[in-house]
């Protein structure tokens, strides 16, 4: 197995991964299994029908045999194609998803910037929602009171802070959500896709803020498709494919493997598409339909 071989190989960035730097995150043999028996659409009705038909329960492993470590001062990038399990991995690291196998240990307060405005209560004011979000994140009221003025200033929503959230524009919501999520510096920062919300000015501001957080935190795990971020801010990377680690090491090397793999995947897909089109008799298909499939 490549994942195992590479993990046991000498660490690519010796000053970061060896030595006695304290561990921030340790993941051992993590597996996350989804059962398709229950989804958001299951009903009593459906389960009863399935029971009568004796359909086998479909399961799949979104993550399998994933092991890695993040030590203090490290910034780990997780890259891979869509559906590889990157977001599931972040959810497991944030404690949102319980492993089906293996162990996740997180030694520090985690913050995931997944939380932009997820818990807003429409009838409550911006200020009340700041309190509510703080309580959801488990931050004590004293700290929350201290950071509130900073949040309001950063979100730049002026007098609307005392108006109900339902009166906010989507940009204002996103700004407030971002400001809350980044208000308290975490020990360990989990980032899913670098945030691109709001106008240009706010985007520049939020990028600066994320960089501050990355610098202040003890460990970072970043999931992204933007390879510039990986090269610029990460000192190690893992490549996930179909729920397994297929490469781990220095960012540039892993990115190169990822490029090769996705190039190959693209070629395979094109070949398959060409085959389907040929079988359908490409001559009989109107050009619009062919283009539709290609997209």
């Amino acid at each position, binding site marked *: 197995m490549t994942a195992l071989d590479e993990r046991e190989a000498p660490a690519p960035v010796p000053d970061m991964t060896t030595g006695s730097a304290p561990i921030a995150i340790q993941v051992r043999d993590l*597996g996350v299994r*989804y*059962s398709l028996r*229950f*989804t*958001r*659409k*299951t*009903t*009593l*009705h459906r*389960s009863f029908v399935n029971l009568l038909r004796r359909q086998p329960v479909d399961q799949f492993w979104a993550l399998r045999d994933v092991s890695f470590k993040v030590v203090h001062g490290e910034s780990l990038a997780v890259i891979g194609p869509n559906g590889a399990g990157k977001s599931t991995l972040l*959810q*497991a690291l*944030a*404690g*949102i*998803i*319980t*492993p*089906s*196998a*293996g*162990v*996740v*240990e*997180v*030694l*520090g*307060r985690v913050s*995931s910037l*997944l*939380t932009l405005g*997820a*818990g807003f*209560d*429409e*009838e*409550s004011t911006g200020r*009340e929602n700041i*309190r*509510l979000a703080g*309580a*959801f*994140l*488990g*931050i*004590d*009221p*004293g*700290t929350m009171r201290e950071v509130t003025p900073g949040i309001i200033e950063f979100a730049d929503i002026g007098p609307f802070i005392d108006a109900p959230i339902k009166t906010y524009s989507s940009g204002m919501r996103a700004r407030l959500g971002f400001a809350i999520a980044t208000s*308290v*510096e975490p*020990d360990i920062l989990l980032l899913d896709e670098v945030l691109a919300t709001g106008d240009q000015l706010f985007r520049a501001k939020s990028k600066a803020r994320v960089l501050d957080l990355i610098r*202040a935190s003890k460990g970072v795990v970043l999931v992204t498709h933007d390879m510039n971020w990986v090269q610029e801010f990460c000192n190690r990377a893992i490549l996930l494919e179909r729920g397994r680690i297929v490469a781990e090491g220095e960012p540039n090397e892993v990115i190169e493997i990822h490029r090769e793999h996705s190039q190959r995947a693209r070629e395979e897909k094109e070949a398959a598409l060409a085959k389907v089109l040929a079988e359908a008799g490409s001559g009989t298909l109107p050009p619009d339909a062919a283009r539709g499939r290609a997209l």
Partner: protein
Amino acid sequence: MSIKAEAPAQFRSSADRPNALGLLREAASEVLARRRLIGYLVQADMRKKGADTLLGNIWWILDPLLQMLVYVILVSVIFDRGGPDYPLFIFSAILPWKWFQSSVMDGLTSVTGAERLIRQIQFPKLVLPVASVVAGVVNFAFGLIPLVGLMLLFYRDRISVMLLLIPAIAVVQFVFNLGMAVGVSALNVFYRDIGNVARHLLRLWFYLSPALFSLDQLEKATAGFPIIHKILVANPWATLFTAYRDVIYDARPPDWSALFVVLVGSVILVALAALLFKRVEPAFAKVL
């Protein structure tokens, strides 16, 4: 850098789950540690329900009165049953039942309504049904206003110190409401059509309880069917309705020993519901 926090500063999450006792202990400590969050959620819930404060609250008062009117017309006018002061008799049942009904129905959607949040942050999901049940107390409190109004206007001779015992009975009912709401909130994640079933089951439950009639009347009517009679007496609502009716309508103390039995049963129900909830909680983020 250290931040004071109500959530643990580090965690270890693995495929091994604690045993039943461990889960219960976890549930209790989560609710206690997050009482501030529960408080905010209750505030938000009340704000939502009383969105246009004045009108929202007027409906809370009018609603039980209108329902009382429906049953009075149905039972005492059409069927010509019902005893003396039947409106008060039936109101003493509608008041706690509406509270129960809203607690169960609000609890039902409390977890599924927070799906975006559950997929994005880690927090003890138990706070959701607990907050919705606590917010439901307001429903009951507002129902007391028309009760007092009715008694002052029409039934002065039935007013007694026994009315002060209403909170004691309400405490027992609160525990029962909590157990039911926590249980159904977890089930609804996996079976989204439970709401449809619950509505009808609740209505059936109401009619099979001594709500429109007294327990004596129902016992007489079902004397020939021992099984139905047993179910009738084992029904916690037989005890609860009778207790409310004792203090409101008959001005006499409730049957304390029967209430105590319901209290013990409700505590067991809460424990079982919390256990079920904690067992299936790890699956919430995957299913929602």
